[in-house]
C-alpha cells in the first residue's frame, strides 16, 4: 500500500496535512570542515483526520523524529508544505507562528529531560499558560488542578517537586502540561519508550480516554510497531528518510509489504524465537 503525494484518503476534515516535506542536515566531514548534506527526511507526505491517531514507525535514523519536529515547527523544513487546520506553516515565520503553539503540543521521550526537575508540578504545568499570557494566579492554579485531575494525579500534589515522582507520573505531568492550552494535535515522540509495561498501558489508556473526551488528534512516533498498532488508526513506516509503507494499522501489521516493515514486525514478534546474531547496525 505504498502511497504517493496525492493520498486517496484525502478528506476535508484533515487536521494535519503534510506534502513533500524534506529536510537535510549538514554534517562536517574531515579536518577542512567541509559540510556534506545528510538527508534526514525526503519527500514525506501524511494526513491525519481530526480525532484520529497516526503512528510513524521506523528504526533509529529513519527520520521519524525529524518529521515530528518539523510538524511542530521546532525546525524549519527545507521544502514542502505543512497544513494545520488549513493554515500553512512552513512559510510562516516569527510572530505569525504564535497561533500554532496552542494548537500543536509535544510530549517527549524522557520526562526527566523535558522538564526542569526542580520545578514544582504546578510550575511545570502552568508554564504554557504563562507564556501565552493567561489570566491571574488563581485562574492558573485552578486550571492546573483541573489538568492534574484529568491525568489522574491528585491536585494536592501540586506543589511537590517533579523529582519526587516516578517515571510514569512524570509523563503524566508532561501530558498535563501539553494539554494546558487545549491543543488540537498532540505529538508524542517516543513517549512510551523507557517506561514499564504496566505504566505504558496506563498512559496509553489515559491518552485514549483523552482522545475521546477532548477530540484530540495524535501523531505518535515510535519504534515499537506492535504497541503502536494498538493505539493508532493508521501507520506510516519510515526508512532512511522516506515513507515506505502506509495504511490502516491492522493491515500494515498483518500484511507488511515493504522489507523494512517486515523487519520491524519480525523484530517485534520474533524476539522470542532466538534468531542467530546478525550484523551490527
Amino acid at each position, binding site marked *: 500500500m505504498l502511497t504517493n503525494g496525492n493520498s486517496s484518503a484525502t478528506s476535508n476534515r484533515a487536521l494535519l496535512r503534510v506534502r513533500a516535506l524534506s529536510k537535510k542536515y549538514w*554534517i*562536517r*566531514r*574531515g*579536518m*577542512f*570542515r567541509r559540510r556534506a548534506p545528510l538527508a534526514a527526511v525526503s519527500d514525506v507526505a501524511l494526513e491525519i483526520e481530526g480525532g484520529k491517531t497516526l503512528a510513524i514507525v521506523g528504526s533509529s535514523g529513519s527520520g521519524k523524529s525529524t518529521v515530528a519536529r518539523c510538524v511542530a515547527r521546532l525546525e524549519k523544513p527545507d521544502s514542502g508544505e505543512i497544513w494545520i487546520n488549513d493554515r500553512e506553516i512552513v512559510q510562516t515565520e516569527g510572530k505569525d507562528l504564535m497561533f500554532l503553539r496552542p494548537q500543536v503540543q509535544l510530549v517527549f521521550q524522557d520526562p526527566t529531560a523535558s522538564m526542569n526537575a526542580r520545578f514544582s508540578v504546578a510550575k511545570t504545568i502552568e508554564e504554557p499558560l504563562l507564556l501565552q499570557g493567561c489570566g491571574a494566579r488563581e485562574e492558573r492554579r485552578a486550571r492546573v488542578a483541573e489538568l492534574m485531575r484529568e491525568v489522574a494525579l491528585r491536585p494536592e500534589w501540586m506543589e511537590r517537586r517533579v523529582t519526587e515522582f516516578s517515571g510514569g507520573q512524570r509523563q503524566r505531568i508532561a501530558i498535563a502540561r501539553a494539554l494546558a492550552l487545549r491543543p488540537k494535535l498532540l505529538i508524542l515522540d517516543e513517549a512510551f519508550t523507557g517506561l514499564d509495561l504496566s505504566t505504558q498501558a496506563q498512559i496509553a489508556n489515559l491518552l485514549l480516554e483523552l482522545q475521546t473526551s477532548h477530540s484530540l488528534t495524535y501523531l505518535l512516533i515510535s519504534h515499537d510497531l506492535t504497541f503502536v498498532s494498538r493505539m493508532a488508526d493508521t501507520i506510516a513506516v519510515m526508512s532512511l528518510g522516506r515513507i515506505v509503507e502506509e495504511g490502516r494499522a491492522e493491515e500494515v501489521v498483518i500484511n507488511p509489504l515493504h522489507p523494512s516493515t517486515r523487519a520491524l514486525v519480525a523484530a517485534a514478534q520474533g524476539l522470542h524465537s532466538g534468531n542467530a546474531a546478525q550484523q551490527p*547496525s
Partner: protein
Amino acid sequence: MTYVFHRLLRAALLLLGVSLLCFLFTEMAPGSFFDEMRLNPQISPETITSLRARYGLDRPLVVRYFRWTASAMHGDLGYSIAYNAPVTPLLWARAKNTLLLTLTATLLTWLLGVPLGLMTGSARGKFADKLATPTSSFLLSVPELVLAVGLLALAVRWRFAPVGGMMSLGFEDLSPWEKIRDMAVHMLLPVLILVLGGVAVVERHVRVSVLEVLDMPYIQAARGLGIGRARVLFRHVLPVAANPAISLFGFSIAALLGGSLVVEVVAAWPGLGPLILEATLSRDLYLVIGAVLFSAVFMIAGNLIADVILLASDPRIRPGEPDAS
C-alpha cells in the same frame, strides 16, 4: 594539523590587535614622558621639541604605528626613552629572570598540586582531605599581595631566606656551583609565594574534577569488572579528570610572564614585572608596548599549547570527525 595552522593565524591577528590597542591606550592616557621635563625650567622647550622629534613622537599616530609594526617584524621594538637603549634587549634580559622564577614555580606547583588533588579527591572525607581542604581554602582566599608581604615579613624575622634581589654581592666571584646555590637561595622566597598560591588552585581544580569523575557510571562499571582501585584512579579517572586541569595548565603558561608582577615587586626580583610598572608610570611608550606584547605572546602561546594538548588527549573534541557508524 590544519587546526594548528588556523590557530597560529588567529594568534598572529590577535597580536596585531593587541599591539594596536596598546598603542591607542598609551596614547590616550594623559601625559607623556616629557611632562616632567617640561616642568623643569632648566630645559628649554626647543630641547623638548627636538627630543620629541628624535623619538618620532611628533608624527601622527597612524604613522607611528605602522613604523613601529614594520620594525617589530624585524624584532626591533623601538627605543626606550628612559633607559636610552633599544627595547628588545632590555626586555629579554628581564624576561629571562622572570621565566627562571615562574618556570620553577609552575613546575613545583603542578608537581605538588596534581598528586594532592588526586589524593584528596579519591580519599574524600578521610584524614588527608580534612587536612588539605581548609588549608587550600585559606591559601585561596588570602590575596596574593598579603601572602607576599606576609612571607616577606616572616623571612626578615626568621632569616630563612634572603629578602631581595637575585644575587648576592660578589656574585661574579663565585664558582659555578656556588652561583647556582646563591640564585636558588634568592629564589626561595618569591617561589614560595608563587607556589603556595598556585598549589591551592591546582589542588582544588583537580580534586573537584576527580570527585565528579568518580561518580560516573563508567567508573562504577570498571570497578564492577574487577579493576583495582589504584588502577582505576590512574588509568581510568585521571585521563578524564585531566581535561579541566589542562585548561588550567594553559592559564599557567599564559601567566608565565605576566602573573608574577606583584611577587617580583615585593621580593625585589629583577624581572619583567618591576620593569613594566616603572615604564608605565613614566610613560615610556615603546617599553610599555614591548613588554605588553611579550606577555601577550606568552598568553596566546599558553592557550594554544593547552588547546593542542587537549586536542591530543580528549578524543571527544576533535573537530569534524565523521561518525564511525
